[in-house]
């Protein structure tokens, strides 16, 4: 129940508290996404988008941790 895809925020605009939205790009396409639930995310940030709504902001520092682990293995 969790198809969530990372995309990059390109623009942000806001009509009301729950109508904060923006264009988010996913590789070669972009889509209007509701950003109300990630108030901390700004243009340039990556967010996880589920059914047209961003649910989480990707923390860049944490994203690379797995590759550090890999170095200790490889």
């Amino acid at each position, binding site marked *: 129940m969790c198809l*969530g895809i990372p995309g990059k925020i390109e623009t942000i605009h806001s009509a009301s508290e*729950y109508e904060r939205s923006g264009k988010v790009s996913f590789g070669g396409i972009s889509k209007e996404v509701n950003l109300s639930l990630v108030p901390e995310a700004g243009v340039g940030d990556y967010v996880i988008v589920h059914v047209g709504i961003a649910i*989480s902001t990707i*923390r860049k520092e944490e994203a690379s941790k797995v590759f550090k682990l890999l170095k200790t293995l490889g």
Partner: protein
Amino acid sequence: MKYLQEYRNGDCIRTVAAELEKTSSRPWTLMEICGGQTHAIAKYGLQQLLPPGIQLVHGPGCPVCVTPQEIIDGAITIAAMPDVIFCSYGDMLRVPGSVSDLLQVKAGGGDIRIIYSPLQALHLAEQNPNKQVVFLAIGFETTATANALTLSLAKQKSLHNFSALISQFLVAPAIRSICARKDCQIQGFLAAGHVCAITGYEQYHQLAENYHIPIVITGFEPLDIIEGVLRCIRQLEGGHYRVENQYQRAVTQAGNRTAQSLLKTVFKISAQHWRGIGEIPTSGLILKEEYASFDAARRFNLPTSNRADNRGCLSGEILLGLKKPCDCPHFAQKCHPQQPLGAPMVSSEGACAAYYHYRDQVSVNGSALPNSPNR
């Protein structure tokens, strides 16, 4: 695509797999909670990379599998009404109710729209003031959040022609219920990353503690999953039972506070019936009184059903990892994907359907699994 491709790198994944091989000394049975993880495991063939003794059991985190038949029957009732636009995610259209499914209602003339986001349903309600727009709000905390957002917008906009047929599930109580069974065979959990992105994982510490079981919050890409497995196995081999967060790039311990408060505004916790499993206390969400006017079941006067959706199917035991599909007398006989008797034969992520297809593949090759019934 950034944050996807790097987690699909074959070299990295094989490195982790090799480490896993080294780490595991004996058979272990883990459960991945989320249907999205099950899908990735199947798509990438990850089972092929695991040491033979490590078994992944598919958990109850597939909404197609667990949505009660009574909800599907209610959806069918509403969708067949005139002047209703019924909105659903694509994957729900093929789920059988007691006598029909939504695709059949559509073929019969019901106005059913396949949507991608609940906000589309809201938009349809604004565009069609003379129609009743009903959204089939199913799934777990992740989807519940999107639905809560949609419902509060509907309330804010006073959309009187919008309602939702609610069937929302909570993951943690289901895990607890699995752990609490005396016959539980699961030794570790890969928890559902996107659910935890909403809920955080504070509540999992006590679970791990109480049931002496490792829980690893895990993402959805192959590298995430294999790393989640490795972390679990390391704990098991070391005799630990902690909560670990493999999916740190998207999940924090606290979770998404904005989403959590929104969920609390719209929903309250209740008991929930899981298809094939039965009722689990405090495992569901229903609308609060302030949102009750958006409840499609109330608006369309749906009957309360008897919830008899089993018809002699072993799905409960199978979803809990206690039995295998081929132990079921109906498997591949009265029950097959074209005519499923129970939930696990419904979705391709369901254990019975997976076995059914695997069986096909084997018999093509001329041999048969020891346990597979004769054709």
